[in-house]
């Protein structure tokens, strides 16, 4: 803890240096025209404008964009988790499910979720559903992969222990295999949240009528680099906030997984 504090200035330094260089090339030396790289002050101004209810140039406030994006991301993510985790667990535990699902899954897994977008737009239009479906796909895949790997880590001797105590197959799954897998399952929840958020923003760049990705896209068309940077910043902050929240939950619920 003490060491962390001692070197905090290094982290502060890097942020200050980046801001300094940015200020230098814009306001001070004017190496970059402001329509390509606005000054930090201009970005802050745009941020405050959007935050306090400004609707130009994309027709909605920052809060509306954030709420659209979050709704889609969390909707698709939740569906991905609810389907993906049990599916991964079932595949790892039941040989027949594995044999049945694996070929399809292996074929679909390398397809980037974004490659689904054209087809999904054909099916669902550019509204809510198409994007939820993209997020669902990207979240589900990470959940399946991690839950599967987690269950496969179950030690044979633990299964024997449970068997000699007369535990049924289902009891062994729930009381031995899933606790073993829990840290991995949690890793899956985290990575899939990250990939869901990234897939969402990309999906909104392509097909959208609101949302953070849409805001960035509109800003590009209007030549508003300041809004683009505001959008990127907000996406970054929300992404790391979400992963931070999951980390905290993880510390609370996974700390016992420790040694094997």
């Amino acid at each position, binding site marked *: 803890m003490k060491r962390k504090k001692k070197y905090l200035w290094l982290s502060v330094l890097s942020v200050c240096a980046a801001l300094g260089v940015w200020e230098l090339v814009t306001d001070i030396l004017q190496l970059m025209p402001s329509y390509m790289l606005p000054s930090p002050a201009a970005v802050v101004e745009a941020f405050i404008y959007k935050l306090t209810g400004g609707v130009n140039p994309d027709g909605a406030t920052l809060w509306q964009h954030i709420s659209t994006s979050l709704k889609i991301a969390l909707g698709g993510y939740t569906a991905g988790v609810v389907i993906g985790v049990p599916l991964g667990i079932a595949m790892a535990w039941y040989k027949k499910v594995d044999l049945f699902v694996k070929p399809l899954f292996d074929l679909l897994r390398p397809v980037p979720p974004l490659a689904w977008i054209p087809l999904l737009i054909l099916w669902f239009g550019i509204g809510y559903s198409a994007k939820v479906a993209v997020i669902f796909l990207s979240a589900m895949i990470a959940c399946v992969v991690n839950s599967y790997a987690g269950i496969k880590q179950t*030690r044979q*001797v*633990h299964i*024997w*222990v*449970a*068997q*000699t*105590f*007369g*535990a049924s197959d289902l*009891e062994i799954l729930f*009381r*031995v295999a899933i*606790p*073993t897998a*829990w840290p991995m399952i949690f890793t899956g929840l985290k990575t899939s949240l990250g990939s869901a958020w990234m897939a969402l923003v990309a999906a909104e760049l392509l097909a959208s009528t609101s949302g953070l990705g849409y805001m960035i896209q509109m800003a590009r068309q209007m030549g508003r680099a300041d809004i683009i940077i505001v959008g990127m910043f907000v996406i970054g902050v929300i992404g790391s906030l979400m992963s931070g929240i999951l980390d905290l939950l993880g510390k609370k619920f996974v700390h*016992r*997984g*420790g*040694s*094997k």
Partner: protein
Amino acid sequence: MEPASQVILQCEHLSRSFRRPDGSMYQVLGDVSFSVHENEFLVLFGPGQCGKTTLLKLLAGLDRPDGGTVKMNGQPVAAPAPSRGVVYQTTALFPWMTVMGNVSFGPLAQGLSKEESRRRAQYFIDLVGLHGFENHYPNQLSGGMQQRVGIARAYCSNPQVLLMDEPFGHLDAQTRYMMEEELVRIWQEEKRTVIFVTNNIEEALYLADRLILLTDCPAVIRREYPIRLARPRDYVDPEFLHLRQEISRQMDPAQ
């Protein structure tokens, strides 16, 4: 002490082979037959890595023999059952459960109520000397303490037979002596039939009512020794040393 006369577990002509990666077979268990009496402390003693664990797994029902049968109370053993508790070589505790969680796992799996399971677990936790450690996780315990939990856990599902597969093999010598002493104390307090596998002659002689000497691969019974030394035993007692020497001589394949 004389073993009670009632036979509880019986193996007849057990054999087991495994397939090597290249497809050839190797036999780890020859033709093994013996009976175990109620409340007897039987030690299966033999050199090397061969056959003993396999034999114990057959007795537990965790593996099936190629030939022969295992019978418990006259009934053939086909699957693992709570009546045969196992203490494993490496600690096989569940790392995500506390000591209490581990020990009460058996009774819970057998459908006992939570209160009853905890009450029973508490009794055996106290018996193995871990009072006060109920809420510790296995990785917070030393190796010896972990094996105490393993013993309490095996006891807690109230088995008729306890199968122990070199439970002290990974402990340092000092802890090992202490655990052997402890095991005898626990066993004398809570008598069960114990079948104990080891490749350590001192340990075998310290614990056994009866000792079965197995050969190396494929394992067959070479000789049987009733061990009538009084308990608690002394590692440097002349009779103890004499037996030790005799059995060691028997192990020498040149004989």
